[in-house]
Every structure is written in C-alpha cells, then in structure tokens.
C-alpha cells in the first residue's frame, strides 16, 4: 500500500515536471514564438501599438512586455488569435491605440497639389510611394497597408486615405 502511494506520488511529480518546467522559453523557443506572433499580425507597420513595426510588437508580446489589445488595424480577429496563441484573456482593442478601421483604406496623393518634397517617401514603412525629389509622387495602392504614417509629414496636406478597391 505504501509502495503504491509512493509510486503514484512519483508519477505525479514526473508528469507535473514535464508540464510545468517548459514554461521557461529558451532563446530558440522565444525566436519561434516571435515568428508565430508576427504571422498573426496584419503587417501594417503603422506603429500605433507604440512599437516601431509589427516585429518589435511581436517581440514585446513574446516577452510579456505588451498587451494583446494594442493593434487597431488587426482588430478583434487579431486580438482573439493572439489571445488563443498566448493563452491570455481576450479583451477589446484599447481605443487609446487607435480606432479599429471599418473598411480597408489606402493612401492617395492628389498629384496636382504634390510639390515633390519626398518627405512621405522617406516615412513609408513598406516603400509603397514611388517618386523622387521634385518629381511626381504616387502611391502604389496594391502595396499600401493603410498605416497613415505618410499623412503628417506632407507639408501641403495632399495625401488622404480612400477606401481600398475591392480585390478581384
């Protein structure tokens, strides 16, 4: 009887160890987790989450330094996917990081008003604006993620957001 109790206790301890110990991630494990989190993010690279792009946000999430509700372009679906992956409670996207967009939007440059200063080209995180200094600028709509980082730098306010065309 004592033997049975001892064996059961030992098995329990062994199983508990296998379940609980791997909670500490190795460096390689962390890199894999960051990749998996990054794969769920929308890659808008807008910085609304307060990090300089989606990968830095993913890194912060993996290290527990950020919350899952900081991504407005990802919206509720991304937050739910992150909650499932990281085993945290789901909660609505925090409005202090921005408004969840209703429709996908892309930037559009009013070409007659553009002065060719190239300020917007420098800030576009995905190089979706074509142009050069004193040459016409235009947005490649198919590559624009709708991050809106190009709007503040424009000195003549000639960039606006328009609803993205329906994909074929």
């Amino acid at each position, binding site marked *: 009887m004592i033997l049975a109790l001892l064996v059961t206790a030992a098995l329990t301890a062994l199983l508990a160890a296998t379940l609980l110990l791997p909670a500490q991630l190795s460096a390689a494990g962390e890199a894999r987790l960051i990749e998996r989190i*990054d794969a769920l*993010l*929308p*890659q*808008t*690279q807008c910085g609304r989450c307060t990090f300089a*792009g*989606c*990968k830095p946000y993913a890194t912060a999430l993996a290290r527990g330094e950020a919350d899952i509700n900081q991504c407005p372009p990802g919206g509720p679906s991304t937050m739910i996917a992150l909650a499932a992956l990281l085993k945290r409670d789901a909660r609505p996207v925090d409005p202090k990081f921005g408004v969840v967009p209703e429709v996908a939007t892309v930037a559009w440059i009013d070409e007659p008003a553009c002065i060719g200063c190239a300020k917007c080209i420098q800030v576009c*995180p*995905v*190089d*979706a604006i074509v142009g050069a200094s004193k040459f016409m600028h235009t947005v490649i709509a*198919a*590559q624009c*993620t709708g991050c809106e980082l190009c709007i503040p730098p424009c000195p003549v306010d000639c960039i606006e957001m328009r609803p993205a065309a329906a*994909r074929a």
Partner: protein
Amino acid sequence: MLLHSHVRGGLQLVGHKRRSAASVRIAAAPAEVILALDQHTGLPAIALVKPGDAVAMGQPIAQPQSDISAWVHSPISGRVVAIEPRPAAHHRGELAPSIVIANDGEDRRHPANAPVDFASMDPLELCEHIARGGIVGLGGATFPTAAKLLQARACAHIHLILNGVECEPWISCDDLLMRERAHDVILGAHILCRSLGAAKCTIAIESDMPEARSAVRAALASDTASNIEVASVPSIYPAGGERQLITTLTGQEVPADGLPSDIGVVCQNVGTAAAIARWIRDGEPLIRRIVTLTGSGVREPVNVEVRIGTPLAQLIEDAGGYQQPIAELIMGGSMMGKTLPHDGVPVTKGTNCVIAATAADFHERGTEMPCIRCGNCAEACPASLLPQQLHWYALGKDLDALESHGLLDCIECGCCDYVCPSQIPLTQRFRDAKPALLETVDSRTRANDARLRFESREQRLTRLEAERRAKLDEKRKAFKDAR
C-alpha cells in the same frame, strides 16, 4: 494511344446525348441580337460603336480593355439600336451592359476581315491575330484564347491537348462538331501548334463518341503533318475537366497554385480550335457557335449553329417551342450548368447547351439530412478532397481547416452532391464558403508582401546609416592624419 493514368473518382452518368444526335441545323439569324460586353473571363470589352451606327457582319464593335479581355464582333449586319443594361445568362438573368443591334437581313460582311496564311506568319503575330478574332474558350470558361497562348508561349516543348471529352451529360455540341467539321478542328490544331511552337498535339475524345472519333481519324488520314494523334478517354464524368484530362493523358499533375503551362501543356476545346480555323481560313471572327438544345421540354432535342446574341426564347421557338411546362431552364450541362429565371436572355460565346428540363428529367432532391460520414463523396471526388470534412468545417466556418483540406482546389464538378445519401447540397456549400477563404488567403499574401518590403527597407536604411558612419569616420581619420 495509351492513357497514362486512370480517371480518379468521378461518376458514370447517363448521357442523354443520343436524343440530340441529329446533324447540326443552321439557325436563321434573329431580328435582333444582344451582345453583353462581359461575356468572357477578364475585364469587360469597351464599346467602339454608339447607337445609330451601321455595322457589318463580323465588324469589331467592342475592344479589349486589358490583356485579359476580348474583342466582340457583330454577328449580323444592321444598325446599333442601343447600348444599355440587358438581362444576361451569365448573370443569372440580372442586367449586364450590352450592345443591341437590329438585323437588316443582308448579312453584309465586314470588308477588313480577310483570311491569312498562318503558316508563313510569325507565331507571336499569329497569337495577336487570333486575339483580333475575339476567340475565347468555347468549352464554357470563355477565357481569352490569345492571352492563354501568349502566356504559354514562354515554355519550350509544349504539348497541345484538344479537349473533345464532352463528359457532362446532355451536352453534345462538341460531338456533332467533330462528326461534321473534323477538318476545321484539325486546321485549328495546326494553327494553335504554330502559334505555340508546339511539337505534339493530342485530340482527346470520349470513348462513347465513336462517330466523332472515326470522323477525326478520317480527317487526319488526309492530313500531311503527323504530329496529331487521337486519344480515347473513358466516359467518366468529369474526365473532361482540364486538370483531370491532362493527368489522364500525360500522367503529370498540374500544380495546385499553377497553370497547365507550368508543366508544358496547353488545353483548348475543340470548338475553340474550329473557331480559330474559321477566323484564319475564312476571315470570320467568333460570331456563331453550335449550341445543344435539349431536355424533355423542347419538341426535338437538336444541335443548332446560332449567331452569338440570339435571344434564347427565339432559339427555342425556332426549334418548335416548348412541348410541356418546364421545371428548370439550364444553361450548360446538368452538373455544372446555371439555372435561368426566364428565357429572355441571349446566347453568349460560352453557351454550349440549353436544357429545357421538365420534372421528369431529373430525380428530385430530397430534404437535407445530417451527414452520416459514409465517404461516398470522397470516393467520387476527382481532386482527392474529403468533401465530408469540408462540409463539417464549412458549417463551423473554420477557415484554416478549410484551407488545409483544399477548399480552393474544389472544381465544383458536383460529383459529391450526386452520391450523397443525405442529399446535402455540398457544392453550393463550398461555393458559399470560398469567398471568405479567398479573402483570408488574399490578405495573408498582402501581409507577407508588406512584411518583406518592410524588412528590406529596414535593411536598406541600416546599410545607408552604416555607410554614412563609415564615411564620417574616414573623414575624421583623414583630418586627424592631416594635422
């Protein structure tokens, strides 16, 4: 010719084709034709004429809008009445912008359309000339033929397959075409081979079409070039599906996210080949085609050569009218054809068959029951999918599982529906689930693109910064050394 592999899955269906086996009748040109501008895959054509213009038979009246688009020609001579939305079959009776032309009865030919000597033409020029004939795939997909040829030309060693495997029940237009106009098909094969630089051509004919086979063989016997052969394919539905046919004949599979040209194969319908022959040899662009008119609702099932744009109601009336009240009007075959709410739509380039079906023609579908997981659907699926699981995941809207189980590989052939004892409308369920999945896949592709562009930009900026620092360090060093 020996087949390389058997047909996977599929069904033996009753063909109902003997009924319409009489020779092709030429229909009289209608009083008015209605030509939709988007009756081909790709972007709609742009009208070149305006109301009031006089047009000749074969005159181009709309030009392609982009690379994947097609010319539209007037099938009759007369006057443009209107350019306005009209009910269209490929929109299930909903409106589509169309050019309406009234017939002056003279069939005046467009003088600029002339035959060409394809054998001496540059292959690229030949492709572009085929485009100007408004030729699209006549097997039902209506893909602009020239676009397909131009894309495929880049591959070496192309094997051309002419699809005469009319596997869907009720349709017999290709059968009759091959029986009566085999020479057109052979000429079309030669033209296509030249435009593609293809060394080999196989004409695939279903095994239950012996008359068509002998007609094509007879036409080949008097043909000088020897690079065309005839292959007999088992009469299993859907052996004539492009991917299934390619695998049956060559043993290779078309990659899921690729095209037949990726494995050096180009597939064209025999009707398309015949239309190309007419354009090259006679200077007549695609303005008419053979349509099977069948079903118990018409007086006599028949194959008719009609002008594109002929109103369906007139076509049926000329064939003797409705014999009894019909339950369904189907444009296409009985497995993949679309039902129409009324007959006030015109024939388009893609109309291969019209079934005026009475209640007796099809077994009635029972009430839908839950899936009993019997596996009949998986056995019948020609794409080796598990429709049972797809149904389960479609109900649960599990997009990841739908994608990994191959929802986007479904060719919507309807075999799974046919065998399901629970009478579940599987094909429609998959059709409904595809848009949401396509959107997810699309946004994932775009996100990946954005990630790559972001990363390469970061690398570029880091590199520029490093170069700038290196230059500054050099300058500082040079300044120190100079002192």
